[in-house]
């Protein structure tokens, strides 16, 4: 079937403002949107820039906005857009565009790093594994699916209004260590996100949960953090 793509184009060094360009592509219903974008780049227009690597939703590098919704181009298929007159392809909202669909992810990774995304277990390297009850480990089942693609950040209305808000993915990473029974810095971690720009910035729009390509209950996880803050420090 033939598809029409309208793609956001912008080279800050050459263009005074962003514009859209239309491309037509032949594709099978089972092909990925990423396959179509590659075909455009390889066969029609080598100047189109976007990130990609694994092609099946593990590396998280091809997050973008497809018909208004943040998604991974490798996880959406041509048949998902059957009957749509065109597919509008745009960079993730709320991020600075470096070129076309490539956005500046540095501020995002700074936020992730700020929550200390590593185990703080107090002791020096133990000779054997630290024990963990299977029920405790199960609490992490969903959040460890996060691939840091930033779809949630693009979709979050609060991130769009307040650049200081930590945002959904960094809060998922905060959850990952707050609720890891092996970690010794729980109180400190909770204190760190106990602010208006932290967990309390979330207004339960659920947009992050809706777009998460790994189906993580993001909003629910943030609410668990809020509840834990109240439990530990009192409301």
């Amino acid at each position: 079937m033939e598809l029409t793509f309208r793609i956001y184009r912008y080279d800050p060094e050459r263009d005074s403002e962003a514009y859209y360009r239309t491309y037509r592509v032949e594709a099978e219903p089972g092909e990925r949107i990423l396959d179509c974008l590659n075909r455009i780049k390889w066969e029609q227009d080598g100047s189109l820039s976007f990130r990609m690597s694994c092609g099946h939703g593990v590396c998280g590098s091809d997050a973008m906005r497809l018909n208004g919704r943040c998604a991974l181009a490798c996880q959406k298929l041509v048949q998902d857009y059957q009957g749509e007159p065109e597919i509008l392809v745009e960079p993730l909202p709320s991020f600075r565009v470096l070129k076309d669909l490539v956005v500046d992810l540095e501020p995002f990774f700074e936020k992730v790093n700020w929550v200390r995304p590593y185990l703080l277990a107090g002791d020096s390297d133990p000779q054997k594994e630290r024990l963990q009850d299977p029920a405790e480990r199960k609490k992490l089942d969903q959040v460890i699916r996060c691939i840091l693609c930033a779809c949630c950040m693009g979709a979050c209305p609060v991130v769009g209004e307040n650049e200081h808000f930590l945002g959904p993915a960094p809060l998922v990473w905060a959850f990952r260590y707050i609720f890891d029974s092996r970690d010794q810095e729980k109180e400190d971690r909770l204190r760190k996100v106990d602010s208006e720009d932290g967990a309390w910035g979330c207004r339960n729009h659920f947009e992050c949960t809706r777009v998460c390509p790994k189906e993580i209950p993001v909003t629910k996880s943030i609410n668990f953090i809020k509840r834990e803050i109240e439990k530990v420090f009192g409301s």
Partner: protein
Amino acid sequence: MGVPFNRNPDGTIAQRAFGGHTRNFGEAPVKRACYAADRTGRVILDTLYGQSVQKGIRVYPELSVMDLVVRDGAVHGVVAYEWATGELHLFHAKAVLVATGGFGKVFKTTSNCFANTGDGAHMVLRHGFPLQDMEFIQFHPTGIHGLGVLISEAARGEGGLLRNRDGERFMERYAPTIKDLAARDVVSRAIMSEIRDGRGIDGRDFVHLDLTHLGKERLEERLSDISSFVRIYLGIDPAAQPIPVHPTCHYMMGGIPTDVDGRVLDAAGYAVPGLYAAGECACVSVHGANRLGCNSLLDLVVFGRRTGRRLLADVAQLPLHEAGGEALDACRERIQRLRERRSGERAAGIRQRMQQEMMERCGVYRTAKGLEEGLDTIRGLQETCRTQLVLDYRGDRYNTDLMEALELESLLGLAEVMLLAAQKRTESRGAHYREDFPERDDANWLCHSLVYRDGAQLRYATKPVSITRFQPKPRVY
């Protein structure tokens, strides 16, 4: 470090069965593979990322190394291209550790990322250093049909079964003791021979991986990522329907030869001053001719750590040179030449022809004739690349058109080495299967292969295998 491994009831790390994991050398399968659902690799990566954040390790994101700075046989740094600006950077260094991963993108069907183009290994080759055991290429038995996306061996570890068009559990015929959990090369060949004998599903080029008997709950808990891949890409519920699979290029046993401390070895077997390699791009040769599932972590974590320690100790004695201007100029000219060409053929078309050819000639089954023809084609494509390769975009910002053109040169260079090594080895061993020489031949071929560049020519040599505790013997499952 905090990897979120699954746990046993007593709180210790849980283990599951995996391909080729047996007790008493093949007697029966054992549960030896530690795991975190079916995303073990990804969460180890996440944990290592966290560790690098904690230690404040400086990362230069989106820089591609274009070349090594080599002088008088020693490595003094690298030249790197910055995607965001198109600038070239010269890094002076006492030591360089190549950790650029595999190069599955040489093949059409692969589980590898688009980025797995082998630039690191190719750069080492370009400087006259050898690559070792490049004919040993692992085809994982269960890639999603058409896409090559990996269905982890965890699926068979948890009890998944392979079936042909008659619904027969055909691995019982090929490996009566451990059946579906035989080593990957054995299972891949079994699948290909079922397909060749017309027992693929509907006579087509795939078989079925049946997980339906495992039940929804177990699939959700232990195999949730692959269940989701199958749902997304095939529209199939693995609890209700079998998954169409065929072999997919997965791992390179060969690569840059190193000693057990990651020091890169030259053709004479001496360590190259200042050059180290670890991970899939390296060949410490713990895998021999076929890697067992999970053992990639030996290359990555065990030898990665050993190499880091060796490098740290060596850096105290290694000198820092301020040279490298010529290497920088050479990279600039290489880009300039590509930019100046106004007409010709773009990288994607050449790459597709290479991938198709490699799949047909250098895949699970190989023959002298096929490898010879493959070499001709690849050398022809290299010539096309040299004289015709043209860019469509000449800008400086995120020029992925340029990056792919540079990567294509690496892919073609490595494809030639693979074909040559496969052509020379006139026997079958591990993942290398020659239809014209189906038996293992220890009298002539119990040796490593080395391929290195000598001017414009590739040279082939062998080197002895060091055998210590375990004598090689046929695998009988």
